[in-house]
């Protein structure tokens, strides 16, 4: 490989930012081979983060320095940098205020907040006095809508997010480059039996000692006594299914990785929670970070993974800080690293941050992102259990899925399966937001009805009537008041043509006009499509245009023509897209248009 360097030199700040990740460059021009380059490519994303955080954008000089150090072709590195919305490849103000406009925030006044922001700070995306504000996809603070986030570049870079945001706070954040001081909101509301949430809000998330005093790390000790096979047996017996949306049997996945002869095995925790309306994983990571670290260690032990990566979305600053702290504490006390608990098992865990790309929650896109490539999904098969991160067998699980593991190890799979239904076992976290009295995370037994869950949250806000519920997320489905008795299980929701997805339950009362929300969902998928395959890249654009025509009551021809067009679009996206993003990009919209046919008339 004969790299053509970028001629713009880096600034001293950019060199320092790159060095902070890669170490000081003492032998700059020493030739190294392609193999070296491949081995270091995964450091590209951390280096881009460092450049963005230090100077506020990824400049040609900074990118050139990264490419020189990592032996990455500049065009490829630019392709990666320009893929993520939290990176800028042209100059930007040091301070950027992000205002969430997705479904829960839209129901919580985001449009009014954006209008006020425009009046005070100028149009979105316009620099003014060293700052600017932009609209943002879901920030995962849906229980405190509307949400905002501020990023400030510089010597001491900062990312902070907060809920119940006011325009005064946005203006202050733009001026100060910092978020408001807030007492932490109660992250979760007590439900039936608090398995997953029992330490959240109760035990100090920054203290390993407090975690251990509350029963932490007993499960890891037990797992090591049981041995890997017995741990997998219990997980299989628990019938735990993935909580990220795909609902794959966890035990089967673990067994598949454990039995792979190829080494090393990787463990990846998918903490790229970005599905609009979803914030359960954030609550677990912020409120009980050691539990996730312990769960990952158990998973690594069971599936013989030597190394693990915890991939957290870039919009979760508090969760990131707490997990980093938890990992360093666990390392310092022999719960991570070499010879854990003196039993000869080694597991190295590293945290990686996403940079603003919903698609990276798709498992193969997440691997590509970690590896330093564009977050583009690839075809399956082969599946990650065989060919995953760096082409090796990889166990990838969602945060909530993993957090169930310590209890399964301690109490046995059978005890776990006693809660819930025969097929959908255990408890589940649901993210209630929108027009609901008490938005928040609720943990209920699988099989609890939608009605009971909503009653637990105090019902529809202000005693109004219910119009619709978005179940499962932007990639989920709209259901109506007559679906309230559906038990919240994989099988029962499937029966009514819906999905639990990532546990999203967004309520719309009878004042809500659905079309603007459908348009925003369409706009979200258009923004978040990776652009690789035609059905999704162009289909999401055409879907949004179609909804705009319906909403403006200016259809091409009569409405039946638009209906036929939508049916074709939806079928092609479902059938021919590479990954789940395109395959589900029309699902919520299709379900709403079907349930409320008057929407076709622009109602």
């Amino acid at each position: 490989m004969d790299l053509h360097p970028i001629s713009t030199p880096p600034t001293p700040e950019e060199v320092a930012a790159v060095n902070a990740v890669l170490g000081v460059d003492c032998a700059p021009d020493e030739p190294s081979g392609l193999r070296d380059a491949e081995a270091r490519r995964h450091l590209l994303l951390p280096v881009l983060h460092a450049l963005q955080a230090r100077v506020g954008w990824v400049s040609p000089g900074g990118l050139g320095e990264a490419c020189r150090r990592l032996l990455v072709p500049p065009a490829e590195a630019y392709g990666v940098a320009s893929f993520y919305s939290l990176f800028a490849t042209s100059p930007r103000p040091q301070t950027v205020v992000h205002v969430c406009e997705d479904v829960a925030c839209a129901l919580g006044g985001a449009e009014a907040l954006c209008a006020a922001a425009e009046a005070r700070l100028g149009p979105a995306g316009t620099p003014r006095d060293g700052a600017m504000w932009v609209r943002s996809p879901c920030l995962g603070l849906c229980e405190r809508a509307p949400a905002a986030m501020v990023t400030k570049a510089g010597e001491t870079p900062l990312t902070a997010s907060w809920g119940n945001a006011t325009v005064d706070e946005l203006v202050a954040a733009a001026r100060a480059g910092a978020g408001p001081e807030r007492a932490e909101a109660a992250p979760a509301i007590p439900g039936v039996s608090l398995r997953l949430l029992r330490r959240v809000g109760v035990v100090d998330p920054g203290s390993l000692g407090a975690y251990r005093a509350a029963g932490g790390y007993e499960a890891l000790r037990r797992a090591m006594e049981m041995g890997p096979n017995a741990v997998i047996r219990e997980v299989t017996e628990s019938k735990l299914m993935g909580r990220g949306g795909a609902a794959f049997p966890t035990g089967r996945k673990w067994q598949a990785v454990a039995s792979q002869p190829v080494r090393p095995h990787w463990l990846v925790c998918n903490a790229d929670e970005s599905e609009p309306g979803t914030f359960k994983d954030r609550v677990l990571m912020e409120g009980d970070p050691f539990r996730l670290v312990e769960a990952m260690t158990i998973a690594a032990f069971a599936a013989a993974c030597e190394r693990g990566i915890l991939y957290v979305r870039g919009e979760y600053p508090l969760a990131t800080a707490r997990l980093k702290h938890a990992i360093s504490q666990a390392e310092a006390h022999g719960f991570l690293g070499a010879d854990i608990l003196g039993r000869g098992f080694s597991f190295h865990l590293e945290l990686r941050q996403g940079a603003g790309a919903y698609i990276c929650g798709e498992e193969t896109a997440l691997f590509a992102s970690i590896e330093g490539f564009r977050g583009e999904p690839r075809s399956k098969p082969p599946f990650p259990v065989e060919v995953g991160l760096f082409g090796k067998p990889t166990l990838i699980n969602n945060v909530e899925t993993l957090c169930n593991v310590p209890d399964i190890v301690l109490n046995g799979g059978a005890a776990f399966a006693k809660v819930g239904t025969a097929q959908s076992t255990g408890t589940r976290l649901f993210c209630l937001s929108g027009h609901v009295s008490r938005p928040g995370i609720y943990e209920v037994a699988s099989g609890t009805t939608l009605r009971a869950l909503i009653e637990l949250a105090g019902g529809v806000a202000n005693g109004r009537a219910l119009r619709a519920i978005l179940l499962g997320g932007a990639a989920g489905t709209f259901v109506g008041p007559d679906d309230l008795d559906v038990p919240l299980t994989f099988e029962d929701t499937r029966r009514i043509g819906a999905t639990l997805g990532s546990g999203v339950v967004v309520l719309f009362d009878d004042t809500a006009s659905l079309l603007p929300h459908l348009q925003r969902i369409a706009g979200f998928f258009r923004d978040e499509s990776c652009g690789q395959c035609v059905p999704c890249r162009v289909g999401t654009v055409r879907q949004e245009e179609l909804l705009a025509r319906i909403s403006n009551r200016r259809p091409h021809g009569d409405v039946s023509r638009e209906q036929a067009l939508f049916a074709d679009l939806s079928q092609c996206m479902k059938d021919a897209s590479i990954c789940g993003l395109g395959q589900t990009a029309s699902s919520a919209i299709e379900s709403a248009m079907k349930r409320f046919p008057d929407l076709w008339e622009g109602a």
Partner: protein
Amino acid sequence: MIRAVTLTVDGQSIEVPEGATLLDAATALGIDTPTLCWAANLTPVNVCRMCVVELEGARTLVPSCARKAEEGMVIHTDTPRVRTSRRMVLELLQSSVDTSTAPDLLAYAKRYGAEPARFGPHGPPANANERDAHHPGHHHVPAGAEAATVHQPRKVDNELYIRDYGKCITCYKCVEACGTDAQNTFAIAVAGRGFEARISTEYNVGLPDSACVYCGNCINVCPTGALMFKSEADLRDAGKWDEAKQTTTRTICPYCGVGCTLELTVQDNRIVRVMSPPEVSVTNGNLCIKGRFGVTYVSEGGG
């Protein structure tokens, strides 16, 4: 030893070697499967989704170019589902891209009855470099009356070839040819994302400032004429490109001892384009700058 795999394609049983794709199996049976992003000399990227087929037991259609044949698979290549997706892929492309110089795509559009006008008239073209400056994750909410396109002015920054990205279907072929599949130059990559995903050099610098070595292997694989010899583009602009007056001649490159096959397009006794047939095993369709652009001297005259 390579094992054999038996599968059924459109009711016919066929045996293929392990590792063969569904496309290989269909082709062996004489089934003409449409492809845009696939080429025999490139790694399958399966992004155009033109070649999708129905696999019994699968939830979605599968890309035949990349999906490996497995024992007992039952495939259907011409069901209503398959035809709908193929027609939609073509409509989506034709409604957003200038496909006027994409002969294969136009033929497929006819075969599948694509009606791209269903999405409305084409929206206005972007200004020069506007799409290249797009920040990912943001877009203006559309009115929907017009269909958004990738139309934009072409990039002309050298005397050898032009880049007309208003004709680009983002099939990744040029990126692959520039990268590990042929040239290992890495002058271009896909940048941005979503509808604003585009082929780009770093920071959209011109080719003379990029790593480009003008091998033109990207032109050789481009299925839409987005990458074109400047000599061809100039003739087309002048209304003088006339395929009826053209002849194609195969010869061997005179420059070095490798012996690459050149395929010369000649019009009015001038070489207007140099391609290389991918099926010739010497270089699988690849050339260097000399073979690609260094033979027009024969008609330059003088000395």
